[in-house]
């Protein structure tokens, strides 16, 4: 009986031990970091939603991950995460230390996430491991962390805003695509008839709101943070920028219903002829999925206050894009870097960016014929000539949410017929600024 008990206890302990070993599988042989073989390692990769759905992303990425596994023997476990959840998931991973090995981040969050210290800095050694820093476009690198620090991530997909316009509607009205805001407003008013509106905006989408607020303020020579990283939301130019954007709905150039949009309904309206214009980043794939062919629309740079403006006044887009980062707590750093190198290799850059309709931040891949369509050429030129990165300050993600929400509320006012004045915009931005934590 005694032996029975001892046997049972031993079996139990052994079973527990086995379970524990299984949980930590693979961690024992690769803790050394950079040396040794990474064969048999399994990486976890959190991909952001780039395609038409999460399932579409899985279809696009899975064969590529298989290819990587064949080349290196490193397995990659893929999880595609929607934009609404991604920042929270990263935050939870940062707090708990239980994150993926490699992940996608919106490039505007780079400095915020960099400040938490959770991401592996890309110093010269790490850049060498993935093939060198100078392979990437300078504007894309500028949106990968605070100035003067090693980038916290590496650019993966680049995007910029352009003004999409419906060729037939413009031709029927005898109009040319606008180059200044005055022209755009006049065109939009002319094109607004009944259910069809001149322009469509995504009023409840916080990120969209701040992208436009950023550009419109920049064109007036203003930023959203001063040089010490303190918010300057209530400056006259910032207020004017937000008011100009919200006025699309207030003036009737955009439909009132746009105030409620936050699920890319703007693209649907544009592709189905309900709106003649929209300001969007790389929308070709989505427009096509709604049945509008490439020859039915054109893309030009977003207007400026005066024609042919240069410098800050000529900024027509933020540097949009997605970066790929490595979690500092990964036990498989060398395998993770190999994966980053693979994803940013020229062939993968060509393949992935052309599938998603984005631009490759790797300069060598940009000359590929896939990126020579008229709309992508325009967007590429915007990115290299008239795009500026959003403020790379630690509080950037809070700026996105507080100002984004303030603009959403202002759109709601405009849609319900309340007048949106300089004073009401200023009050909303004052409230947003007060919610910013001191840094």
């Amino acid at each position: 009986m005694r032996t029975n008990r001892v046997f049972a206890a031993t079996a139990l302990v052994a079973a527990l031990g086995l379970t524990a070993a299984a949980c930590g599988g693979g961690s024992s042989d690769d803790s050394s970091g950079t040396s040794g073989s990474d064969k048999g390692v399994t990486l976890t990769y959190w991909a952001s939603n780039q395609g038409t759905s999460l399932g579409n992303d899985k279809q696009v990425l899975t064969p590529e991950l298989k290819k990587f596994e064949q080349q290196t023997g490193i397995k990659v476990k893929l999880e595609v995460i929607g934009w609404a959840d991604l920042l929270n998931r990263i935050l939870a991973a940062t707090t708990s230390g239980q994150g993926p090995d490699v992940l996608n981040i919106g490039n505007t969050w780079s400095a915020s996430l960099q400040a938490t210290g959770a991401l592996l800095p890309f110093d010269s050694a790490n850049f060498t491991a993935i093939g060198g820093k100078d392979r990437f476009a300078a504007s894309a690198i500028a949106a990968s962390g605070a100035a003067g620090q090693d980038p916290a991530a590496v650019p993966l997909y680049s995007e910029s805003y352009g003004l999409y316009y419906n060729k037939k509607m413009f031709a029927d009205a005898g109009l040319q695509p606008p180059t200044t805001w005055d022209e755009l407003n006049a065109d939009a008013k002319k094109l607004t008839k009944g259910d069809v509106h001149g322009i469509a905006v995504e009023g409840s989408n916080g990120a969209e709101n701040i992208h436009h607020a950023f550009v419109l303020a920049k064109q007036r020579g203003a930023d959203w943070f001063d040089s010490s990283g303190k918010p300057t939301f209530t400056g006259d130019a910032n207020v004017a920028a937000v008011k100009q954007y919200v006025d699309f709905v207030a003036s009737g150039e955009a439909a009132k219903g746009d105030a409620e949009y936050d699920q890319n309904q703007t693209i649907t309206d544009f592709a189905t002829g309900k709106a003649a214009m929209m300001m969007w980043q790389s929308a070709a794939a989505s427009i096509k999925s709604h049945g509008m062919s490439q020859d039915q629309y054109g893309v030009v740079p977003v207007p400026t206050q005066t024609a042919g403006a240069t410098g800050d006044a000529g900024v027509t887009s933020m540097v949009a894009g997605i970066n790929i980062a490595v979690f500092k707590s990964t036990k498989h750093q060398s395998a993770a870097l190999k994966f980053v190198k693979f994803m940013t290799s020229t062939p993968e850059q060509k393949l992935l960016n052309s599938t998603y309709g984005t631009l490759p931040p790797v300069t060598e891949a940009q000359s590929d014929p896939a990126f020579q369509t008229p709309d992508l050429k325009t967007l590429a030129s915007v990115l290299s000539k008239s795009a500026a990165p959003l403020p790379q300050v630690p509080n950037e993600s809070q700026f996105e949410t507080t100002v984004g929400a303030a603009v959403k509320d202002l759109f709601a006012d405009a849609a319900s017929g309340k007048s949106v004045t300089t004073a009401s915009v200023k009050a909303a931005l004052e409230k947003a600024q007060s919610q910013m934590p001191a840094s």
Partner: protein
Amino acid sequence: MTATAPLENASEAGPDSGKPAGRGRLRPRIPARLRQGGLPYLLLLPAVLLELLIHIVPMVFGILISFKGLTLFYIRNWSTAPWTGFDNYKIAVKIHQPIGQALLHSFWVTLEFTVLSVGLSWLIGTAAAILMQEGFRGRAVMRAVFLVPYALPVYATVITWTFMFQQNTGLVNHVLHDQLHLTSDKSFWLIGSNSFWALVIVSVWKSWPFAFLALMAGLQNIPRELYEAAAMDGAGVWQQIRKITLPSLRPVNQVLVLVLFLWTFNDFNTPYVLFGSAAPHQADLISIHIYQSSFITWNFGEGSAMSVLLLLFLLLVTAVYLLVTSRKRGDADA
């Protein structure tokens, strides 16, 4: 296999020890001191440990964080965040400053929302429970249908409501505007001032079946003879409800209203699914407000301070409520 082995041993241990079953069997293992009154505490120990682990420890951490300046710079190792004393609390309660003002605003919105939602849920639940008491054809089916909102996952029901509340394509505007011509324009439900009403409607729709269920159970306990006697004395339906049903349901109602109040006041799912993390100003419930302060602006110290204040308020409400209702019951008993 491993699980059964010790059991077999245990069953064999009894006769082997050669002692009578019952108290005597415990003697070799439990020290005398424990036997004299410690055993109940020993038996409570697992529950106490679990309670500590699940509720008390996180709460203590939450309270600790509320005294720290925990921002994104310290997220990876929150214990290194600097102590700030009562600063977070001071910021939260300064009602003339923007943050305090916003917190107070969302507090009032939440209170208004809770009173309306609980009141309506209770009213509908009571009415339905009373109506369902009478036997009629199809009663079982009706009861089942009434419980559907309670049985469905919250996320699924609320997301369905967001589709129905869409300004352009939603069912609500289609009925109100296109079919009944009650509104001159298609109203917005998910932004602007109507968003508060959208919140109340979804919340009531979600909570009244629980009130219905609890009250239906309560009604089963009222003896039918009371009604028969009242009817004999010439009391009408309304009088029966007032004099028999409602007083008999008082114990159920006391618990029901308190639970509904606490759930509704703290409700996070409904506003979050309905509006996302940036709720409209008019529907800025306190749960979302605190979530925004903590998780969206990455200021966990301030968010924790707000949470502690909320906890204190709810404790106070519960204490006052229990005190008042138990005194009433005492009066009634006397």
